[in-house]
């Protein structure tokens, strides 16, 4: 019950605050102001830029995670020698604190001491602005997200691959279907439901991204890489604008639900067609 209270009360509390004008600094008595907070946020260019940034990161990183994850899982499933060792090694990034991953990334991407810069200089691309240019910074964040969360996709896709029945493939091999055809006509459709579930989880989780951005770019340069959670943190803990922040986090919640529903609606006909 305590646990239930812990989960529900904050919601009720912040929902009620989100309709109020409430600041800690300067301290003012809370005042009911209806939907003002929501209207203010929706009219703000920064809010939309944050939504855009977060969506770009999510879309690209989840797509890459899925493609690479599926490929690696398929390779691991092909009974390669030492695949059990690979399995443990490839799992690791997922379990490392995002904060630590972000720090490692900063080291690697560092223009003076980082190995990546030296490597690219050999190919004639010296001093790429990994974290100081808007587009490069976004790219770096996406790369880090992919690095950290592809193992999650590998783990689940591998489990999915292992549940596939052997006899279907044997039949396909007898009929001289190429590996490539087998993949598209058997493996992919059969794994569609679990793929949808994995992508769904990753989308939801990725929208919450904060620690990586916080450490790697701090939202910079400017606010070019600021994500939703980071924006809410800035508003709440730097400006102590409580009503506004609560309204913001509820808009965030609504946004995620909308995205989730849209995704499921798009995907549903494909999954059902198969079964």
């Amino acid at each position, binding site marked *: 019950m305590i*646990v239930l209270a*812990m*989960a*529900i*009360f*904050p*919601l*009720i*509390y*912040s929902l*009620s*605050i989100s309709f109020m004008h409430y600041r800690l600094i300067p301290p003012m008595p809370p005042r009911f102001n209806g939907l003002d907070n929501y209207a203010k946020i929706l009219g703000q260019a920064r809010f939309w830029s944050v939504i855009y940034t977060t969506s770009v990161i999510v879309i690209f990183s989840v797509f890459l995670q899925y493609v690479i994850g599926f490929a*690696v899982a*398929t*390779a*691991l499933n*092909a009974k*390669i020698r030492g*695949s*059990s060792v*690979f*399995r*443990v*090694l*490839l799992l*690791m*990034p997922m*379990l*490392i*604190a*995002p*904060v630590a991953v972000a*720090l*490692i990334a900063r*080291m*690697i991407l560092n223009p003076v*001491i*980082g*190995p990546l810069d030296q490597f690219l200089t050999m190919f004639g691309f010296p001093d790429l602005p990994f974290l100081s240019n808007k587009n490069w910074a976004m790219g770096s964040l996406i790369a880090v997200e992919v690095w950290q969360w592809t193992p999650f996709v590998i*783990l689940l896709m591998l*489990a999915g691959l*292992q*549940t596939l029945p052997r006899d279907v493939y044997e039949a396909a091999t007898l009929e001289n279907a190429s*590996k490539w055809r087998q993949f598209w006509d058997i493996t992919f459709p059969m794994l569609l439901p*679990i793929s949808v579930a994995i992508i769904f989880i990753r989308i*939801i989780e990725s929208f*919450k991204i904060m*620690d990586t951005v*916080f*450490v790697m770019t701090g939202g910079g340069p400017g606010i070019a890489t600021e994500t939703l*959670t980071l924006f*809410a*943190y800035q508003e709440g803990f730097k400006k102590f604008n*409580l009503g506004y*922040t*609560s309204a913001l*986090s509820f808009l*965030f919640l609504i946004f*995620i*639900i909308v995205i989730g529903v849209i995704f499921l609606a798009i995907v549903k006909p494909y999954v059902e067609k198969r079964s």
Partner: protein
Amino acid sequence: MKIGRSFATLGLFFWAFITLFPLYWVVVTAFKAPPAVNGGPTYLPWIDFDPTLQAWRDIASGLRGNFVGTVTHSTLIGVTASVLATAFGSMAAYALVRFPFRVKLGSGLIFFAIAMGGYLVLLNYGGLSRSNSMLIAFSAALVVAVLVNRMHLPGPIMGNEDIVFWFVSQRMFPPVVVAFALFLMYSELGKSGLTMIDTFWGMTLVYVAFSLPIVVWLMRDFFAALPIEVEEAALVENVPSWRIFVDIVLPMSTPGLAATFMITLAFVWNEFLFALFLTNSKWQTLPILVAGQNSQRGDEWWAVSAAVMFAIVPMIVMAAILGRLMRSGLMLGAIK
């Protein structure tokens, strides 16, 4: 066939390199002396540079912040929260697997209306403090909702599947929604004498609440996969259901419990947002300290690497153990 396999192996090695190189880099950097770091990238110990323990001495001497204390905090909070979450979560999961529940949607709505409305009314017109009005509204809502649930209500009835879905959907909430409200609630509680911010129980409670959905989700599948015959036999002999749970079900699902415990522990160990909002110095956890390394004394990457290793080594050990469990086919049930 042959070509395909070697191609796959090549791809695997490539991805493994991408995965492992950053980790190797941290380990190597943690043993470099400052000049070896700042003079540009160096790769191999004893060839490129001479390994030193400089960074580790810095950390041991407390120059980089209170590491000993923070690691202890993280461990204490992590282990306690994971034990509690696994215990409560598996009870809930077992109940959801074996006993049918019927919650009427109407009573759920009534619960929410009374909790929210009662809180606002008591706060604004009843002249009570925030924490008191919350407590009263919540208990009133709970009692009324349970009573109402027995009556006939219009509207759909929710079964176990819906309850599980509701549980899991909590994972969808952006934690910042809750983290911020929790910070406000905790500071209210602080005013009425119960300090929660920056305390052991404050943090542990939050983490238990937030690990529960995962635990329920994972454990439900483990329990559902257990053969029901044993339990039925015990039921026939009139063994009370809590005895069945403790003496029969739990021992049978030990691997599942272990895996769930470790996943929860990893989640708590790495958690950043709640710790950022709810701690400041006394019960700071490791991710916050590590994140702070960056700005505290400038970019001393050798020391940062050593700090990062503190955060990741326990998790890598766990990855090895989890990999073992995974190979035994144990994780399969959990993801279906």
